[in-house]
């Protein structure tokens, strides 16, 4: 992989730090009144999720990481791995629980997700901002209560638990914002 000099750093750049692939979350140029400039970077370790800060001298460079974000379709779960397919190459990738993380509760077959590959292996899976999932279980809906007023828990077919308005019934399909885990509307 190419090396990146600190003056080419930008948000989203993927680099290797201490052997792990990391993504730059925030890049700040620091220049004292007199003296050399520094680049202060907030990094996210793509394997562990840890976010921390490191400072680089202006002429320092770091190795790029072979990390690719690829749009894929979720195929199935075999009890151990979650399988995703690249719709362009039809290639299948198996991701373990570590890579799938919390995203598993939003995975519905054939849904589009973004799979991050490091040296060709999935290291994280990001769902679309919105998913449409069916309610598997919730208390019966209250007739007439269609506008404001309380909420209740609902379990979706993927196992995710979300708060929904009282008028929602079992079997309905809902639109959920995966970034907040909140109910948006009926689908």
């Amino acid at each position, binding site marked *: 992989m190419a090396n990146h000099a600190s003056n080419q750093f930008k948000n989203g750049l993927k680099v290797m730090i201490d052997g792990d692939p990391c993504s730059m979350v925030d890049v700040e140029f620091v220049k*004292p009144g007199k003296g050399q400039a520094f680049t202060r970077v907030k990094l996210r370790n793509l394997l562990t999720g840890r976010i921390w800060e490191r400072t*680089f001298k202006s002429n320092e460079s770091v190795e790029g990481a072979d990390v690719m974000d690829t749009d894929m379709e979720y195929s199935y779960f075999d009890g151990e791995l979650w399988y995703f397919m690249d719709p362009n190459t039809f290639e299948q990738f198996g991701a373990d629980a570590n890579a799938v993380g919390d995203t598993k509760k939003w995975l519905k077959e054939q849904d589009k997700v973004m799979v991050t590959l490091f040296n060709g292996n999935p290291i994280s899976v990001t769902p679309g901002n919105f998913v449409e999932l069916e309610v598997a279980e919730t208390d019966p809906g209250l007739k007439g209560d269609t506008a404001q007023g309380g909420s209740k828990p609902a379990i979706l077919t993927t196992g995710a638990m979300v708060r929904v308005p009282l008028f929602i019934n079992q079997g309905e399909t809902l639109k959920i914002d995966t970034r907040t885990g909140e109910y948006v509307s009926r689908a």
Partner: protein
Amino acid sequence: MTDWQPTAPIENLRRRGEILAQIRQFFARRDVLEVDVPLMSHCAVSDPFIDSIEVAYRAFPEAAAETLYLQTSPEYALKRLLCAGSGPVYQLGKAFRNGESGRRHNPEFTMLEWYRPGLDEQQLMDEVAELVMPILAVDKVERLSYQQVFERYLGLNPHTTSLEALKTETRRHVELAMDDDDRDSWLNLLMSHVIEPQLAELRAVFVCDYPASQAALAQVREDASGRLVATRFELFVNGIELANGYYELTDAVEQARRLAADQRQRAELGLPQRPLETRLVDALAAGMPDCAGVALGVDRLVMLALGAEHIDQVIALPFERA
């Protein structure tokens, strides 16, 4: 595409315009002359850590290009005017610095720089405070020495602490792989990463009496304890560096020595050798009045006045859209 649009809201540009007018009124009332020195020069700044933007000048379209430099500050030119008897002068205009781009930097930025014959740096700090207090709605500006801020926020003396101890202290606060045997690099890291953010609690503060090694174009004199310090100050507001001023060096021989030292350091660091402004040395040899001078980042002043988080919010068309 929306990148034809300014990044700064029009309301911010209106406030910016008002602040520029306020600055000009301030100097008009005090009989400081506004001048308009060149932005493009045959010489470049000597400071190894400031990179001038090169421009190619041609006498006619097919001629070989002559390299000129966009000014990183009007300092050299303004000092030549002072030596020619201009009296107090200021420039409110553009300056350019290669590679300086970020939340608080735009490679082309607006700088206010002024010189006051007969004032020392303490008196100039008074004037800087009088200019910025009404713009920023601040009612006082504290004054602390470089040593005091290091003692207050890190419990160490920046002048006497060993290089190794500075490295250890820095690595306690900042993760970094680099090494360096220049004390100033470590002091700068501690200042920018640890102290500056905490200076925000004071709202507005002048830090003065910098280490002699960070004098740039300031005079060096003994402080109360007999240590050599630079007669240099910086103004920080909300932890953001806003202005940098000196009781100016007027000694031509020392000026020539510092230019040569910068050029040597550039060579050691593998940085480009650029033509030095020897006309400044000639001007000082002809006689520069004792004076204090200061440069202030106007974009940052507007950011602070408006509470803007990013410089793009106060510059109509920043670098990427220029």
